[in-house]
């Protein structure tokens, strides 16, 4: 018999108290305990990105996260990015650009893209950034690299990059893609 541990999680703005077996992943806690099935279980080993959620604002893999370790954390899932059905601009762009087929990877892609935009706004570089000390500009190569942790078996990649590029373009026009700032 294992003892359970009490934790508190705020998921998509709502607080939950629950007792978890220490082995429970955040993904299983969300899906099986709290009935939030927007994060998907693709591989359960950190290889596909389908389980991507935002924890305290940053994109992470819920399948490789122990729920007990995230006591008191603020979790945002793709579901929470669309309060009362009002789609997030990233999700709107996915619709407009046909950036999915079966849709299984899409909640993870959308959460990841929201993370990408935030990281870029903080000036984070990527593996394809030529000048590490220069400004962060989200061109297609940058977006493809930054989204590489999200696989899509339907191979909607081209349209996913277009969708993220559109939102990145809007963000850039509003001036929130800033130069070389530290995070």
């Amino acid at each position, binding site marked *: 018999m294992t003892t359970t541990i009490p934790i508190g999680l705020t998921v998509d703005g709502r607080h939950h108290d629950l007792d978890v077996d220490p082995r429970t992943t955040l993904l299983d806690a969300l899906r099986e305990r709290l009935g939030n099935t927007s994060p998907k279980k693709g591989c359960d080993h950190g290889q596909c990105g389908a389980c991507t959620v935002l924890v305290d604002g940053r994109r992470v893999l819920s399948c490789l996260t*122990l729920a007990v370790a995230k006591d008191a954390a603020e979790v945002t899932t793709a579901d929470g990015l669309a309060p009362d059905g009002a789609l997030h601009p990233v999700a709107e762009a996915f619709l407009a650009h046909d950036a999915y087929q079966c849709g299984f990877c899409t909640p993870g892609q959308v959460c990841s893209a929201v993370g990408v935009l935030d990281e870029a706004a903080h000036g984070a570089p990527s593996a394809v950034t030529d000048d590490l000390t220069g400004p962060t500009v989200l061109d297609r190569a940058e977006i493809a690299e930054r989204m590489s942790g999200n696989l899509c078996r339907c191979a909607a990649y081209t349209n996913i990059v277009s969708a993220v590029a559109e939102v990145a373009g809007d963000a850039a026009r509003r001036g929130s893609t800033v130069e070389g700032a530290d995070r």
Partner: protein
Amino acid sequence: MRPFTYARPDDAEAAVATVGADPGAVFLAGGTNLLDHLKLGVATPSSVVDLGRVTSTAITELDDGGDGDGDGDGDGAARSSTTRSGLRIGAGALNSDVAAHPLVRRRYPALAQALLAGASGQLRNMATTGGNLLQRTRCVYFADTTTPCTKRDLTQPCSAREGWTRYHAILGASEHCLATHPSDMAVALVALDATVQVLGADGTRTLPVAELHRLPGDDPTHDTVLRHGELITAVDLPASPIAARSAYRKVRDRASYAFALVSVAAALGVREGTVADVRIALGGVAPKPWRATRAEDALRGAPATDESYRAAARAELADADPVESPLGGNRFKLDLVVGALTDTLRRLTEEQHS
């Protein structure tokens, strides 16, 4: 998954004491390697000790005892552009935060590039500096508990010898294990002469990252020289002008989100067409991040040309022992090392001309 108890101590001493008291206990940092191994049955700890409140996430300039610009003249000049003071990276600092840090990007570009070449954006937001160093091999037989593996169990044979060795070692392996260390970050740290700060039951010690990992010999079960219960608390990067002229090059089967077949971390100083100073480490080729001292020795004082770079790579590979296996082997890594090292050094040379 086997049941385990979970603890989240408040400080490093308590964490060390808790793990030290239980031979079956392990530290948990980002969990990106440990959770995978818990699910696979590769790790079966009796208790998991979370470092969430324990390890520092700070990245701070090391006081070098001088005026801050390291030249000892007391003017503290040009602190923002100097390459002279070192950096301490807390063991809990996330891979993404280290890569994005302005001082890392400016003073230790090879480290930023190595981190950014590893894993994915989500994983880098979870993976820590300490955990990255201590991640275990990606040998497919090690991860599959239905295939024999000496690293998992000293009484079993190695499945890789006669198997799939595309990601396996050509240097430093033994008949018992030829698995590579998978970290990109560690390769850059070894090239940049970084050290690790370790806390154990008997106090603290410091060791070069180059001496942290061990070769398999006749006991591949221990990847590092750390004793059970020892905690990595920080990584220190020494002040080094040459580190600002460093780069990381990773060759892999996919353009992104794949482990290295071969990687190179190098720092180069060229004066009047001659190699004045050089640091090289290789990844994907050995059971540990491989400091290429033979190549470095061959290069110091040599003309800064492709011929020198190729010859240095070949000198490093003199004792290489690639595997010929029914599934393709890994002899191709010899040419890959020569190409990747030559290319990396050529680019660093060109940057110094422009």
